[in-house]
Each structure stands twice: as C-alpha cells, then as structure tokens.
C-alpha cells in the first residue's frame, strides 16, 4: 500500500508541476512537451486506479495524436510572445476571476462530499475482477449508452467535415494525379516508332 501511496504522490506532484510549467515556460514548444509529460503522469494515475484501458487510451489519443498536432501548430506558427504578453496586464483580472470560480467550485464539490456524508455511495462501484475493464466499459457503452455514444460519433464527424470545409479552397492550377489512368496507359497509345529519313525530319 505504501508504495502505491508514494507513487500516487509522485505522479500527482509531477502532474501539477508540469501543469504549472505549461503556462510558465517561455518557449511554447517546451510548454507542449510539459503538457505531454502531464498527460503521461495522468495516465499513470489512471493505472494506479486500475483503469488500464483509460490510461492506454489517454496515451494513444492525447499524447499520440492530439499533442502531436499541438506540437505541429506551435512549431509551425511563429508566435510572437512578447506581443501576446503586452495585453496580459489588461486581461489578468478576468483570468483570475475564472481561476477563483474554478477553485470555489472544486472546494464546493469536495467539501460537499466530505461534510454532507454519502461519500461511500458516491464512490465508484468496485470493479468486478472477473472481467477486464475494457470489457466492462464496452458492455456499458454499447448497451445502455449506445445512443449517446453514437451521438458523440456524429458530432465528431460533423467537426471533421467542418474542419475540412474550412481548409478546402479551390486551386485552379493544381494538376491532379489520376493513378488509374496512369496504370491503364499502354505503350502503343503513347509511343510511336517511325522511320525517319536522314535530313527530312519528322
């Protein structure tokens, strides 16, 4: 138990530290790299909870795909951070307000749990050791919540189409490659052998 506790504190401390570094570091690429480390440690926390499927999906989806795109954008964009910081003094009261609201909500939720009782009933249902949590999740998602799951899929599809439509612009001069046409070309259609008399030309 003590090893698990130590691991928990280690992982959560690194997660929080990385989260701070995400907003504190001056180099945007470093920010994204710290974000990735934070994702990793959250995956470790999931593993400690016994949610191995969620941990792996977190790594595959967030670290393996989403964060790579972040990194792409941050590397490609030439962000001028000095100019971004100029406005910071103007906006910090709003940022602080958002932070305070979030903190208050967190205190309300955890405080409500701790003081109002019923903590035991609100705790997650102990998992059935006979089935893996991949299977447990699948059983719930594809039966009870199948409509919500499908709706989420449709929303993502709409988002994909939206993103493609935003970046699609007609480019008149573009020459497209038609692989089927190239494959079906025969030598006799395009190559002609001619006997050319000397000095006469073709």
């Amino acid at each position, binding site marked *: 138990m003590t*090893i698990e506790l130590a691991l928990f504190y280690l992982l959560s401390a690194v997660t929080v530290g990385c989260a701070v570094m995400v907003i504190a570091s001056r*180099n945007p*690429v*470093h920010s994204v*790299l710290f974000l*990735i480390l934070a994702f990793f440690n959250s995956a470790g926390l999931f593993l400690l909870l016994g949610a*191995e*499927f969620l941990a*792996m*999906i977190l*790594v*595959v989806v967030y*670290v*393996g*795909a989403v964060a*790579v795109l972040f*990194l*792409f954008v941050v*590397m490609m964009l030439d962000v001028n951070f000095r100019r971004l910081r100029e406005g910071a003094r103007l906006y910090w009261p709003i940022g602080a307000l958002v932070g305070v609201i979030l903190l208050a909500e967190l205190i309300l939720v955890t405080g409500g749990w701790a003081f109002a009782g019923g903590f035991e009933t609100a705790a997650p249902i102990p998992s059935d050791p006979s089935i*893996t*949590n*991949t299977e447990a999740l699948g059983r719930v998602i594809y039966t009870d919540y199948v409509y919500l799951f499908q709706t989420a899929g449709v929303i993502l599809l709409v988002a994909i189409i939206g993103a493609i439509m935003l970046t699609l612009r007609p480019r008149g001069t573009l020459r497209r*490659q038609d*692989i089927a046409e190239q494959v079906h070309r025969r030598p006799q259609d395009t190559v002609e052998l001619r006997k050319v008399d000397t000095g006469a030309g073709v």
Partner: protein
Amino acid sequence: MGEPLLDAVLSILIIVGQILLIVVPLLLAVAYLTYAERKVIGAMQLRQGPMTVGPFGLLQPLADGAKLFLKETVIPATSNKVVFILAPMITFTLAMIGWAVIPMGAGLVISDINVGVLYLLAVSSLGVYGIIMAGWASNSRYAFLGALRSSAQMISYEISIGLIIVSVLICAGSLNLSTIVEAQRGLWYFIPHFPMFMLFLASILAETNRHPFDLPEDEATLVTGYNVEYSSMAFALFFLGEYANMILMSAIASILFLGGWLPPFDIAPLNWVPGPIWFILKICLVLFVFIWARATLPRYRYDQLMRLGWKVFLPLSLVWVVLTSGFLVAFDLLPN
C-alpha cells in the same frame, strides 16, 4: 521489519534481471540485423557485402559500434540543447519498452497485461516524439522538414495499423497478446486475414520510416532528414532505435498474424522445437521482408504516400473490420 523491504528489493532485482535478459540480446540482434541487411542486400545486388572485419565480415557491427562510440559528439550552437539531447534518448527508450509486453513463449513475458495491444499502440504512437523533437531542436531546415514528414507519415499509418489490429482483436476477443496467440492455435490469422496481413506489412514499413517509405531521411532531397545534425552516440541511439523498432514491429506482426510462438502444425517433429525458437524464426521472416523491400522498391513520392495511407489503406481496413464482424456475427463465431 526487514522482511518486506528485502522482498521488495528482491523483486526489483528480478525485474532488472528480466529487463537485461531482453535488452542485451535485443541490442545484439540489432547489431546483427544491420549486418544481415548489408549481406542480404549485397546478395540481391550480386555483391558480397561486408567481408573485411572478421570471418565473413562477422565483426563488422562491432567495428561500426566502436567507430560511432569514438566519434566526437557535436551539439550545434543554435540548437535547443536539452531537447536535442533528449530526443535520441526518447527514441531509443521507446524502442526498448515495447518489449515489456511481447510474449516470447507460453508465459515467457515480463509483464502479461490485459491491454497489451493498446500498450504497443501507445508506445509506437509515442515514437513520433523522438523524431519531431530531434527535428525541431536541431534548428535546421532539413532536419525540421524531415521531422514534419515523418510525424505526418507515422500518424497517418497508425490509423490503418489500428484498424487492422481491430479486425484481429475481434477474432481473438482479447487485448492480451498471449491470449491472441493462443486463439491462433490451429489457424494463424494471416490465412483468414491475408489482405490485412499484406496491409499490415506495408504499414509497418511506413511506421518505422523504412524503404520504400523512408521519406523522412530522403537523402536526395533532405540530406538525411531529422538526424542530419546528430553525430556519434546520439546518432547511434537513433540508429539503434530504428532497427529495434523494426524488430518490435516484426514481433507484433508475428504475434498478430503468424501465431507467435506456435509451431506451424501441432505434430511431432515441429512441436519439439521450443516456442521462442519459432517466434524468433517468424520475426526473422518479417525482417527479411523489410530488407527485401529496401533492396527492391523505389522510394514513394510524399503525396503518393499520403494518398496510399488515407485513400487506400484506411478504407480497406475499415471495410475489413465491418466484414469480419459481420461474418463472425452471422455465423455465430464470436469469441466468448
């Protein structure tokens, strides 16, 4: 009080021993994979390959290693030093940690986890970071272009790899690699899933940035791509990582499609051979395909590579998932 501590230390020592048992032969295998590659390509091109160092050039990998080790490590002045040094380490480490879940034989695995396949997907999807960090930290146009190409390519082909794996998983009914191998007793999945096996072989070529998809290190246009600024051991780590990744991907292909440690037929002379030997033989077979492709095929153009990934592999593997699940449901063959 001393007892639990002693137990903990002992179990850690056992795990370290197991890790060494995997990593040391793996590094040797990487060294001799480079030798095998040069020999095989040499034979295919009617050359002899390495012949000078040792009998039949057998000591060539050691000589290469010593050469890389003795070279000077050059860190470009304009590079981002921490990330620059971190990148080859990440590449190398990621190529190693995948082996934690690879079962060599029945029960012969360091960590027999429930989500082995997802773990491998996660590790291979992380591989892109070593490359993109190297390209960015080098602060060089060529390296950066190579890194961008590589990451786009790896992300694209991961999707088709994921879908191909899904059709195998539907048949096996588990994410545990040992269970997947045991489910192939009698019929290896490369027979019913033959088209997917072919797609998988092509996809792992792209995933490991090997020929004919080695655009990240397209020497004609990018010098050598993301590792152009690296020298000495930092370069060696990239090199080792790339080859270890090839072996890892071959192991995954053998587990998913070629029945892992199972003998081809469960009959007398074949099942005397221990499982790990079969497994290694299958890995060598897939590795030979890697080398064969390198010696045979010309490099793809980048837009053709993307077209192949998104417009050919992705729809085909998606259709195959639907077909497989439809078939299994219709004939009531679903596992469990």
